[in-house]
């Protein structure tokens, strides 16, 4: 015993802190097109490598290559580009609106637009997402009205959630978007339950669960994988690894497991890692997982490797914990620019058309904002009633809440 050193605690640290030179040399990026595409019914143990690689379709020249390519038409890709640009413009306007005091809080998607926008396109009407706060692309890409989103963000008189929820915590059953909690990871296991229900009822619908890299540390993540694996639920388990959980780098949640996708292997769940900034790759992998779910082959775990370019929220300042230039050094590039380059290469797009689309989209967002602001913003104009505090706690208002509402003067 005496020749052993005393124990010491290992506390992981990111490679670089503010003031340092950004360094992503530890992110191993395989060549686009180099990762094989297994059949959807392959045994999970025969595709374990996919949990450690990164599936990529778009190469540095903007070409779509390899076995995961060639799934989408020009029109589908143009519509995907438009969704991402719309989400980006929407975010920019809403961040500004928050700075102007029109709302209390906002969370943007900058750099992560491909993940939710491309994913939405593999779902059909009736499928259900259980999202986190950074998947508004699911709504945008499904045609949910921007004005409705803004009414919610401004908590105004037309807020579909009657002022009860923090901005961006949308809910739309019609658009397959489960009410966002604001708590972390709880939705992951709920998605599995929804998928189990679909299977119990011999339905054809599937569910999609969403979580961030940091929240995989929650016990509900483990519960979700246990239930999904046990009952082979028709669910796609998505992990958006954007490298940062507020100020905490992903190594704190990941520990020694190598990748987040690899968490699925111990559960016998097929696990894939994909370039989250590659619209075509996200679509292809999501499609593969959706097909597995629809064919009753069970759950799939997908890790989207991406980067949170913006702050965690409008209450956060990333320059306090990471180099300011880190996003520029991110080796997987920008999802909008990459798809744009690919479309130009295909001859389906041009710089001129892109600039024109940008202007049109900005105008569209501004028009929606004007309309929403006509119904009020957080501190000005129309707002939900005080009565709305007391409504909807239960289907039928119990006497004690009625007494309190009367006490409040409503």
């Amino acid at each position: 015993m005496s020749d052993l050193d005393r124990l010491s605690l290992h506390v992981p640290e990111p490679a670089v802190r503010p003031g340092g030179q950004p360094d992503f040399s530890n992110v191993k990026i395989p060549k686009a097109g180099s990762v094989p595409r297994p059949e959807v019914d392959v045994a999970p143990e025969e595709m374990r490598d996919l949990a450690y690689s990164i599936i990529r379709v778009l190469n540095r020249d903007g070409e779509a290559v390899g076995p995961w390519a060639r799934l989408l038409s020009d029109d589908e890709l143009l519509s995907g580009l438009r969704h991402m640009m719309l989400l980006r413009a929407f975010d920019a306007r809403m961040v500004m609106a928050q700075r102007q005091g029109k709302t209390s809080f906002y969370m943007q998607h900058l750099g992560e637009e491909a993940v939710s926008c491309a994913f939405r396109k593999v779902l059909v009407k009736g499928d259900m997402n259980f999202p986190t706060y950074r998947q508004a692309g699911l709504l945008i890409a499904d045609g949910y009205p921007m004005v409705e989103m803004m009414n919610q963000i401004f908590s105004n008189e037309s807020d579909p959630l009657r002022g009860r929820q923090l901005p961006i915590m949308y809910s739309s059953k019609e658009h397959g978007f489960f009410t966002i909690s604001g708590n972390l990871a709880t939705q992951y296991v709920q998605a599995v339950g929804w998928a189990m229900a679909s299977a119990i009822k011999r339905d054809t619908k599937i569910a999609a669960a969403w979580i961030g890299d940091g929240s995989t540390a929650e016990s509900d993540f483990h519960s979700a994988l246990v239930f999904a694996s046990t009952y082979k639920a028709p669910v796609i388990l998505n992990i958006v690894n954007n490298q940062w959980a507020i100020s905490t780098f992903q190594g704190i949640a990941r520990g020694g497991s190598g990748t987040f996708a690899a968490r699925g292997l111990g559960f016998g769940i097929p696990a894939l890692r994909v370039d989250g900034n590659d619209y075509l790759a996200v679509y292809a992998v999501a499609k593969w997982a959706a097909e597995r779910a629809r064919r009753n082959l069970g759950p799939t775990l997908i890790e989207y490797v991406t980067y949170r370019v913006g702050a965690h929220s409008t209450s956060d300042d990333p320059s306090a914990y990471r180099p300011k230039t880190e996003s520029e050094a991110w080796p997987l590039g920008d999802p909008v620019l990459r798809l744009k380059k690919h479309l130009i290469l295909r001859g389906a797009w041009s710089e001129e058309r892109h600039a024109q689309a940008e202007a049109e989209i900005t105008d569209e967002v501004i028009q929606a904002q004007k309309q929403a602001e006509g119904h009020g913003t957080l501190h000005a104009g129309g707002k939900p009633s005080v009565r709305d505090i007391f409504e909807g706690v239960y289907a039928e208002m119990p006497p004690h809440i009625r007494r309190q509402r009367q006490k409040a003067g409503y």
Partner: protein
Amino acid sequence: MARMTMIEAVRSAMDVSMERDDNVVVFGEDVGYFGGVFRCTQGLQAKYGKTRCFDAPISESGIVGTAIGMAAYGLKPCVEIQFADYMYPAYDQITQEAARIRYRSNGDFTCPIVLRMPTGGGIFGGQTHSQSPEALFTHVCGLKVVVPSNPYDAKGLLIASIEDPDPVMFLEPKRLYNGPFDGHHDRPVIPWSKHDLGEVPEGHYTIPIGKAEIRRQGSAVTVVAYGTMVHVALAAAEETGIDAEVIDLRSLLPLDLDTIVKSVEKTGRCVVVHEATLTSGFGGEVAALVQEHCFYHLEAPVVRVAGWDTPYPHAQEWDYFPGPARLGRALVEVMEA
């Protein structure tokens, strides 16, 4: 009508509900093939198949979390938490999810789930099989909290809970499963077959959530009780000879305040009794409401009788459990005040 234990009554409630509505599903630890550690779900898997009654992994947050997802889909899950003491890993899912989904989505999504859980002591279960966590639920807006005291109520209230559009915490006093236990642990167990409230219709009926029942009419003092303590209170009234009116709350949330107020206005005295720990227990809420609504009718301070503010001990169970002797002393005290 049939004679049923409380176990048979809750089983019958699930059976009737599953028969009537194929969106009702039942699952939890050991509830499928085996039929539950207290046998409440015995036979349901054989009758309805293993996709409607099945075993779950030992993961309460997973059980409640998946039930919430199923409810969002349109099912009506009635799940079992093996002991109320095991619900804590699911507390996040219960309090911040199930309770608020209707409110936060403005009714876009709802959460009609029932969590059944055996509660209370009296079976030498020690600190992790004896707890009464009802106040941890009554403090949460959006939940309903039900505690039956007999087989007839248990069945009617459980069917009402399953049919309710909101999440219901259904606490089953485990010491009442086989008989109306009045706290006299040294006497032979009286079975439900020898009690009027062991008479249970075989078919469908409901008892509304939020309605109390007066178990004993009296004029001297109001005893507010629920679950096992209803029977303790009846015994204490008989043994002290004090003419107590015993109210069985049945539902704690929503609470039948009118029945309490009417009774205390008549008697002028009130004792609240529960097995859960005293401090911040549900008795505090009842005492506050009674002084708020009946202050000028009160002849004496409201008295609380409860479990001690300690973990539930094993060997000293009967010194912890608020039996008829302890409650009887409180009745004498409140009459002399």
